[in-house]
């Protein structure tokens, strides 16, 4: 609902961000993102991990510069950390050697506010956010929830125009996050803070729906806007209301439609190449989900929310597991339902040895990186290869860190499938059966 009558507070124009990859070209993290932030709204950016949403937040406040495009704050280009924009960090970012009061005073001190005034304002903010009595405590003495309250007090005390929240609640347990979210919402609704807009980044659908007026759903790899939704619900929002549930379902389906229906093998190979970002999921997690879906009561299909509850997880945390299972053709997600595939059923009903055989077969067939590693090993006379060989290949597509992560995932899966062995000390992959050299 682009409303041109209100001037935008912050505007992103055609933002792209790529990181230089060693040797070959660059990695696209964000691609052509344009959005405008209007006064009085809370905007949520929703996406799976690795969709560049945190990078986007850092671009908004001038911590990172975009490779292309520009950021305008009140009509002026942002080229460095912009005054008037503050951020709340996922891991709090408190200075452990400063007390709560000193942490909150930090921004004011940097602005050169006089000590007496500084103290007054900091105490006010501490009071407002419910930290009264903890002024002289050090962060390590506080619980996670209280620490994040310090993070909020520190960000709000400088009276920011725009508040950015980078997964601000995701390091907290569920009830703690809930109460902090409600407190923030109260401050916002009752206009107790002069902040004029909030941008939050989250992977939690319900959280975004509880707070935001507008939600941008991001696609990953590279990150780009997949959908924009206006949320007309009134505060306080009831997560049990039909309208709320309906919105949740709609966003689910937007987020999961990345899996293309009736895709041919050739098309799929093009989309999922060697550099595909394999999700960090263990075989045990996959098995757990499959076993749940295969329960007699479920008959091979289960609703996402129900599945999440049975695994004692947030629905969002299921995504990587389901992604892995779809990748291996063990199950498929249709709308709000998870449906067990034929091979998934065979896998989960097999014994331990048989499971490994099925898993290996699918790993080779469906995950190009696994097939590639196995092929390379077979071609070599000694049937061994150093890890660098594959890491360097992955770095053509991924950042060094990400390559490292994906590599450890494939090692884990490959070891389970007994496709290859990996010697941690030497950093060498081989086809030999682990344990043979010991005996």
């Amino acid at each position: 609902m682009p409303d041109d009558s209100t001037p935008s507070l912050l505007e992103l124009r055609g933002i792209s961000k790529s990181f230089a990859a060693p040797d070959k070209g660059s990695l696209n993290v964000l691609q052509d993102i344009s959005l405008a932030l209007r006064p009085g709204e809370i905007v949520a950016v929703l996406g799976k991990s690795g969709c560049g949403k945190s990078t986007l937040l850092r671009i908004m406040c001038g911590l990172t510069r975009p490779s292309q495009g520009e950021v305008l704050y009140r009509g002026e280009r942002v080229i460095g950390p912009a005054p008037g924009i503050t951020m709340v960090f996922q891991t709090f970012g408190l200075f452990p050697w400063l007390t709560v009061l000193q942490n909150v005073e930090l921004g004011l001190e940097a602005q050169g506010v006089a000590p007496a005034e500084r103290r007054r304002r900091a105490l006010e903010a501490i009071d407002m956010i419910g930290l009264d009595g903890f002024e002289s405590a050090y962060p390590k003495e506080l619980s996670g929830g209280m620490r994040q309250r310090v993070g909020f007090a520190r960000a709000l005390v400088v009276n920011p125009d725009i508040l950015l929240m980078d997964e601000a609640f995701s390091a907290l347990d569920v009830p703690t996050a809930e109460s902090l979210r409600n407190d923030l919402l109260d401050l916002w609704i009752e206009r107790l803070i002069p902040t004029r807009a909030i941008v939050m980044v989250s992977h939690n659908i319900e959280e975004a729906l509880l707070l935001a007026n507008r939600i941008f759903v991001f696609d990953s790899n590279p990150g780009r806007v997949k959908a924009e939704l206006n949320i007309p619900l009134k505060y306080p929002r009831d997560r049990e209301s039909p309208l709320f549930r309906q919105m949740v379902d709609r966003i689910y389906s937007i987020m999961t439609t990345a899996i293309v229906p009736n895709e041919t093998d050739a098309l799929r190979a093009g989309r999922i190449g060697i550099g595909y970002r394999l999700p960090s999921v263990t075989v045990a997690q996959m098995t757990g989900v499959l076993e749940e879906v295969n329960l007699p009561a479920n008959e091979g299909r289960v609703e996402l929310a129900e599945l999440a509850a049975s695994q004692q997880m947030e629905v969002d945390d299921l995504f990587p597991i389901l992604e892995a299972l779809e990748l291996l053709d063990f199950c498929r997600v249709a709308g709000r339902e998870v449906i067990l595939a034929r091979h998934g059923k065979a896998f989960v009903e097999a014994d331990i040895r048989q499971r490994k055989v099925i898993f290996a077969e699918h790993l080779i067939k469906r995950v190009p990186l696994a097939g590639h590693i196995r092929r390379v090993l077979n071609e070599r006379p000694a049937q061994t290869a150093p890890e660098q060989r594959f890491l360097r290949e992955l770095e053509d597509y991924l950042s060094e860190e990400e390559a490292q992560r994906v590599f450890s995932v494939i090692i884990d899966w490959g070891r389970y499938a007994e496709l290859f062995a990996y010697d941690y000390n030497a950093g060498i992959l081989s086809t030999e059966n682990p344990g043979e050299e010991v005996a």
Partner: protein
Amino acid sequence: MPSIRAMIPSQEARESIGLPNRWDVLVMPLVLALLFLAAWAMRQMSAPYSWGSPIAISLDPAYLPYYALRTTLRMVLAMACSLLFTFVYGSAAARSARAAVILIPLLDILQSVPILGFLSITVVGFIRLFKGSLLGPEAAAIFAIFTSQAWNMAFSFYNSLRMLPKNLYQVADVFHLSAWARFWKLEVPFAMPGLVWNTMMSASGGWFFVVASEAISVSGKTVMLPGVGSYIALAIQGRNLTAIGYAIVAMLVVIVLYDQLLFRPLIAWSDKFKFELSESEAVPNSIVLQALQRARFLRKLRAWLAAALLRWRPRRPRGWAERLGHPFRRATASGDRVWSSTVLVLSGVSLFALGHYIAHAVPVAEIGRVFLLGLATAARVFILIVLASLVWVPVGVWIGLRPRWTQKAQPIVLFLSAFPANLLFPLAVVAITTYHLNTEVWLSPLMILGTQWYILFNVISGAAAIPNDLKEAAANLGLRRLMVWRRLILPAIFPAYVTGGLTASGGAWNASVVSEIVSWGPTRLTATGLGAYIAQQTAAGDDARIALGICVMSLYVVIINRLVWNKLYRFAQSRLTLE
């Protein structure tokens, strides 16, 4: 009796009107006395002096407190210089990838240079710099202590900056901290625990060098600065065992005071900077720190200092911050290549120049002989490290596995490592001459006398850190004693042992310069080795040969570190760290 109570101002009232509290009464005179002593000794340091004229040193024990004061002051000044150096050098290396290309390998080499070797060269320079003042030799001595401390402090600071979580930098940026404020609010606090620990370790090594550098003889002339080191040198000349005894006692007192008044409080204080988000059980404490923190006037002074420090703002904070940049920003690849080739060429040229200078003055055969001497010293160091390990590893493990013993033993071992072993050298000479022992063999232990404690200390802390569940699992599985050692204890203490061994080996090389030639009055015992060679050339004032000796020794140390210790260290890091 409310009326009387009302007469005494409450705590808050006293705070607000600025009345001194009882801690003030305790601490204020102490601080003032220290300041006065320091000021007075400083004036003595800059007394007029002409090169070659003797300074009267008396063996009367009544003078010892004064000498101890002078020695301590040198120590403190050297530490202040080291700290300043650390901040500048460490941040420069962390901020610019290009600077790091030079600074970090340079630090590595500087660490390996035998400090006492180039004392004779620096002393001449400093005497020229401060003509007609005692400050010349003083500065040379301070410089020697500085070189024994600064490198590893700078390393520690650099490494801390490298570990600093990136999101804290982002916090600093979001809240617009200037580069200056960021340095004091973020970088220094984060580096503080490591820095304090390394400073303490350096200081304990420093006592050795302060003693060795007070009595300097260059080209036949001897400068004796008032201090415990000169007192000992004089006692050695006069074969006065009683005086040596006095000096040892004085040194013991000084080190204990230094530890209690400076490092205990510092360690307890730096604990709050530990980057941990949960409270640890064992928090170090210090009565002195408590007194300092509770004294009102010091609190005021501290607040004022902190405010003054942060009030200073560079005129253009933004531009300044941009130019300085964040640590560990990536530089462009092509620029890097140009830069590193420039550095390579420059270091090649200077290496060639140095080689040319030495080859011009020293015949090739002698250069070869010096390398052989290096081999002799290397063999000595190697054998001694092995022997010391055989003794101290079992002892350290025994202590480390018993928490109550560990607590008592740690401070004692730290103290032993701080005690300048060169004070004991005369005793060794007396023993060797009395029992007609083989000099080549029996002088050797002297070089490890002071540094063996690093092995013991590290093994104790390694053994103390073995998790209880591992010990219980070993017992539960019924492992035999030998298996427990092979499968649990040795792997668990190995990383700590390597750290200790590396320090001990470096220290032993350094000590060889004073321990391969030892005298007692007219008696002079010499062992064959590179250390003795450097000492002889220093006495003769032959610059080219000193340079040769230093270069060869540095080369040996660098190569041994690279081939042995670094390999072991990396192995320990990747395989044996307990996570």
